[in-house]
Structures are given as C-alpha cells and as structure tokens.
C-alpha cells in the first residue's frame, strides 16, 4: 500500500483524506487539557466518563493572604445532652476559629415513639397477653433504641420473640393514633394505620426465608430439577396444542421415560439423560410453536421485507439454541457453501433456507445426543470411576481407544485402537490432527465438517 502511495497512484491519498474529513469533530476531543499527551493516552486516549479530579485544581495552593493554623480546642455538640467537654483539632484561619454547631450533630436522628398516658392505656391498650409494666418497658426500650427490635428483644426482661414485641408495639401505637385523631380520615394516610403489622405473615415469612437459606446443595439441585421438568412438561403441552404436523418425529416414549428418570434417586447421570432427551424433544415442538407465533406477528404488519421475515423466522427457530449452537449452525452453512443471508431472497429461497437451518439444528442435536449416549455407555463400563458427569468425559477416552468394532458414530473413518495421547475433550479436537485431517472423531464437541464426498 505504501509503495503504491509512493508511486503516486491517486486513489490512496483520497480515502485518507476522507477519513480525516469525515471525522472533524472527533479531533477537538483529542487535545487533553492540563495533563500531558502520554498520560492522557494511558487512559486509552479518551476522556474519562466521570470527572474524577479536576486537574486544574490540583496545583492550587491556599490563598497566601490567609494564615492557617491548627489548634486543639474544646467544642460542644447539640446532640449531647450532658455537659461533657470534648476537644478536637480545629483549622483556624487568621486566628478566628470556625463557628457553628458540631458538624456531625445533624446526623443524630431518632424515631418519634408515641407515648401514651395511663388513661389512654386503660381505655385502649389493655391486652390479656401483656401487662402494663411490660408495655411500658417495651415503649421505653423502643425509644431508647430507635425501634431496633433485635436489641430490644435482647434487652427485654421477660423472654419475648421479636415478632411479639413488634406486634405489641405497632398495634398499640396504631390504637393510640386512631384514638387521638379527631376523625379517622385524617389519620388514614399515616403509615402505621395504612399498613398494620401482620404477625402470622411475618412469622411465616421468616420461617420460609430461613428454610431457603439453610437448604443444602443437594436439595437445591433437586428443586431445580423438578422445576425444570415441570417447565418442560408445560412447554410440551403448549407446543402440542399449537403444533401442526411436526417435521421431526418425536418418539412418544421419551416423555414418560425422562419423567421417571428425574424422579429416581440422586443418580447424577440420569439428570444429564433427562436434559438430553428433553433437549431433543423440546426444541422440535417448541420450535413449531415459535414459528407459528412469528408468522402471526408478521401478518400483523402492513408491510415488511422478505429478508426481515426470514430473520424473524430464523430467530424463532433458534430460540431454544444457545449462542454456541447458533455459531455452529452458521459454520455448517458456510461449510456447505451456503450464504448466511441468501443473495436472492425470494419466497421459495427463504423457505428452503429456513428448512435447511432447522435441519442443521436437528443434526447438531442428534450429534450431541450421540455423544452423551457414548459417555453414558462408557461410564457404565468403567466401574472404577464414580457416577460423576466429569468422569464420563474422561472415561470416554478409553472408549475411543477401544473402539474398532463398535461403529464410530460421527466420523466416517476407522480409528486405530492404539493411541497413547490423551486428548483434551472439552473444546478442541486437534488431538486427532495426527490422523487423517478429514475425520475428527465424534468424541468431542466440535461438529464434523461436512463434505460432498461424505455421501
């Protein structure tokens, strides 16, 4: 490019000129004030989103005409009711100490606890479960501790639960408020009146909360499983209602089979089975449901572009697939020589394109199923490993090494049984690169590239 530049071909200077011209306003942002260019570039060359320190203020010194000293002086605070004399360091300007209340006195807030008179108690507040003495003590503590009921409960002379104390306090205050108010309407907006304390609900709520907090991992997993199963059943019911003739035949026995396995004992292999079965079953039926709702929403539009319609349908079809799956679908399309977005998006082409994508999704799902099946098979074989999903993958290596007679599922070549190298199963398939490059084995997650020669 530079050589062409030097040779004087007119084209190249122009694009550069364009870039400069098309961004005139960005240049003015480039000049930092107050800090050197290199330092500015450290931050990425962009001004900080929030002004942290005003740079021009940094080098300022206090005006020199003022004489500043620091002195150890006594002070008073309006927050204190006793006469305790306290001292602190004070910044004195020109011999004049600062005036005003102690700066932190304003934070001394307290709660307005309603205090009742004895007659009011006799009239409104008598309660079989509470003596007047106890109630008095309660109100004292409330005032003293600003309604911090945990502390109040701790200090309370007779043993009472927090909920009981709260209940007594709030209902008593409420009764007094209502009694003192000239009319019920006036006090109706007071928060104490508007929302009465509900003891039973509070007790129940706290119990449920502590239950959730104290759940063991095992219980959590179980709960999640059951919920997921319920969701799947609900989804498949919904899809079955909305479904037309499904493209992919869904084996009818998958439903009850997976339900059984979920409810079985805490065998951790079976959950993964459940996932796989349901994953195969659910996408096919829920995809159909999504498609019909997308069609309906398209019909609601007065006008739309064919490419837009295709995008929506593709999205609907891949709604159950994760990002990685979608990327794999796109990779497969590219391998097959198909544009991700059709060049001539007619109705027929878009329909074919959509069907192709759906079929690729099915293919990928089947591949995954096959992997899981193999993993499951091998874990049963290797008795020394525990029933852990992690070991299923590890033991899969042993499976592949053994496999000459059991037909290899996804690749199309025969794999020699002798392989000393342990491959990393998770994401990479390059362990197989030592063999013929056209047949990475199906034991790992990367889908096999498809070629016309496969068929």
């Amino acid at each position: 490019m530079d050589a062409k530049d030097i040779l004087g071909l007119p084209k190249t200077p122009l694009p550069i000129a364009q870039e400069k011209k098309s961004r005139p306003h960005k240049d003015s942002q480039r000049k930092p004030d107050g800090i050197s260019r290199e330092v500015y570039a450290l931050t990425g060359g962009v001004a900080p989103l929030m002004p942290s320190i005003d740079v021009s203020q940094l080098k300022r010194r206090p005006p020199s005409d003022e004489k500043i000293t620091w002195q150890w002086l006594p002070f008073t605070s309006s927050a204190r009711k006793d006469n305790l004399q306290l001292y602190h360091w004070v910044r004195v300007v020109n011999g004049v100490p600062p005036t005003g209340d102690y700066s932190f006195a304003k934070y001394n807030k307290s709660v307005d606890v309603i205090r009742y008179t004895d007659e009011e108690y006799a009239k409104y507040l008598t309660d079989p479960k509470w003596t007047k003495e106890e109630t008095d003590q309660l109100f004292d503590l409330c005032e003293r501790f600003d309604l911090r009921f945990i502390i109040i409960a701790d200090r309370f002379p007779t043993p009472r639960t927090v909920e009981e104390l709260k209940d007594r306090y709030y209902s008593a205050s409420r009764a007094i408020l209502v009694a003192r108010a000239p009319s019920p309407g006036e006090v109706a907006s007071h928060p104490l009146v508007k929302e009465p304390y509900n003891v039973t609900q509070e007790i129940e709520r706290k119990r449920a909360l502590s239950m959730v907090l104290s759940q063991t991992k095992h219980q959590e997993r179980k709960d999640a499983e059951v919920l997921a199963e319920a969701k799947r059943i609900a989804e498949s019911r919904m899809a079955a209602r909305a479904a037309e003739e499904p493209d992919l035949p869904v084996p009818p026995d998958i439903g009850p089979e997976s339900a059984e396995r979920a409810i079985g004992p805490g065998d951790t292999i079976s959950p993964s089975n459940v996932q796989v079965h349901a994953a195969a079953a659910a996408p096919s039926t829920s995809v159909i449901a999504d498609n019909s709702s997308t069609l309906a929403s398209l019909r609601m539009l007065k006008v739309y572009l064919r490419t837009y319609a295709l995008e929506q349908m593709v999205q609907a079809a891949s709604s159950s697939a994760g990002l990685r799956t979608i990327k794999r679908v796109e990779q497969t399309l590219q391998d097959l020589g198909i544009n991700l977005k059709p060049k001539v998006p007619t109705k027929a082409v878009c329909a074919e394109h959509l069907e192709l994508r759906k079929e690729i999704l099915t293919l990928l799902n089947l591949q995954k199923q096959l992997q899981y099946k193999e993993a499951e098979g091998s874990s049963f074989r290797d008795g020394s490993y525990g029933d852990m999903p992690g070991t299923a993958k590890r033991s899969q290596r042993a499976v592949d090494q053994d496999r000459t007679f059991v037909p290899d599922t996804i690749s199309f070549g025969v794999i020699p049984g002798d392989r000393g190298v342990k491959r990393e199963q998770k994401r990479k398939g390059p362990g197989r690169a030592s063999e013929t490059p056209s047949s990475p084995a199906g034991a790992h997650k990367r889908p096999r590239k498809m070629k016309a020669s496969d068929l």
Partner: protein
Amino acid sequence: MPHPAPEAQVVDGGSASKPQRIIKLGKTTDDSDKKSTNRRVKDIELCVPIVYGTIAFYLGRKASESQSHKWTVYVRGATNEDLGAVIKHVVFQLHPSFNNPTRVVESPPFELSECGWGEFEIGISLFFHSDVCDKKLDLVHFLKLYPEDESGPQSTKKPVVMESYNEIVFPEPSECFFARVQNHPAVIVPRLPAGFSLPAPVENMNDKGRGDTKDHPLSQWFMNFSEADELLKLASARQQVQAHIVKLRRELSVIDGMPQPLKPAASYECI
C-alpha cells in the same frame, strides 16, 4: 348485490360475481375510496420484488478532490418493471455534507445521481400509495465507490456496482390495491385458490410516461438475480444434511437397542 369497487371501469363484471371472501364490512351501499381501502383481501399476500443499489463511475480526468466520482442510487423493479403503481415516492437520505441531504423523488424511475468523493450509508425510504400502505419502509445501502480489487488505476468505463435484491411483502392488501395491480407485471400475485373470484380489474391510470427501467441508460450494469441457482444449492445442502441425520438416527437406535449397563464384551477385547 353489493356495489363493486369504486374505481372499477368495468361495471357489470363486478356486481355479478362479488366474492364473499373479500367482503369484510356489511355495508357497501355507498363506497367511498376510504371504505374500499379498509376492506382487505385475506390470505393473499402481494409481493413486489425490488432491487436497490448504487452504480458509481470514476471521473478520471474530470475528477477533482471533492468530486472524484459520479454515482447513482436507485430502486427498481427486479424485472425492471415500473414500480410507480406501488410506490408513491422515495426519499433518499444522503450524507449531511451534501446540500439538502434529504432528496425526494416523486415519480419513477426512483433514482438519484450525485457527484462526490466519499462512501457512506444512504437511507432509502419507500412511501406507498394511500391504498397500498400508510407506513413507510426503510432500506439502507452502503455507497461503494472503490472496487474490491485495488490493482491498477480506476477505469472510467467500468463502474462499481452494488445491488441488493429484496421483496416487499403486503400480507393483507386492500381490495383497491389488489384490483389495481392484480395484472401488473411488477407485482407477484400468488396462485389464487379455487373458487376465488377476483374483483373487477382496473385500468392502470398511471399514464405519466414510462417509469420502468427496461431501457434505462444504466441497465447494462444491472445485476441478474436468479433464484434457481440458490434453490439448487439449498436443495443439495439439505440433501446432505438429511442423509447425515438418517445415519445418526440409525446409530442412535443401535446404541439404544443395546442393553444397559452391559455392553457387548467384544469391545473389551479389541485393543
């Protein structure tokens, strides 16, 4: 019998065979224009295939720093038919550095030519006739001036052409619109179901001169969009995938058929 669509010039044909399918509103005695645009043809979608894009010529000797290329942006029918029956006007939104960057083209052929040096995104808004659709449709196209292959100086004879094919779909066209364009070459009308009788066809009243692009000066550069090619490729790809699926299903059923946890002993022995 209900009165036929108001624009119908054929009088008797309409009244005799008014299909039940099309009548949505019961009252049809005094058909104003507005009423007939409210009546919709259900289950028939009209499709207008279009091609939009740009053609840019390098000006060569006549080029200056600020005007190095002459380019044209346009929207045409995919088969170069007149879009004027469907589109009322088109608004091209150019880069703000242009004078009056919002350019309105009121009649077909919907195109705009300009001179400049920069590449940018052109906004194209299609506005339809009132009986077609009251919502505009927005497209975006990137103006390309410089060819992909940068070898050698730019030719003034061979332009840089960028075209995109798309189809405008009207899922529930109004009766009026349908009547107007059912025989129009720019519009694809699907095969009508049996028993469906058409509203009276209407003379195309757009006699304002040719709006089609069949003999357009730039037509030699127009790209050809053939769906056959793409359909073939898609069909072959689908075949491959389907074959693969069949294979996998077979293998899965083999594994399923095996009793678990026992696997055939043969696998232990083949090391």
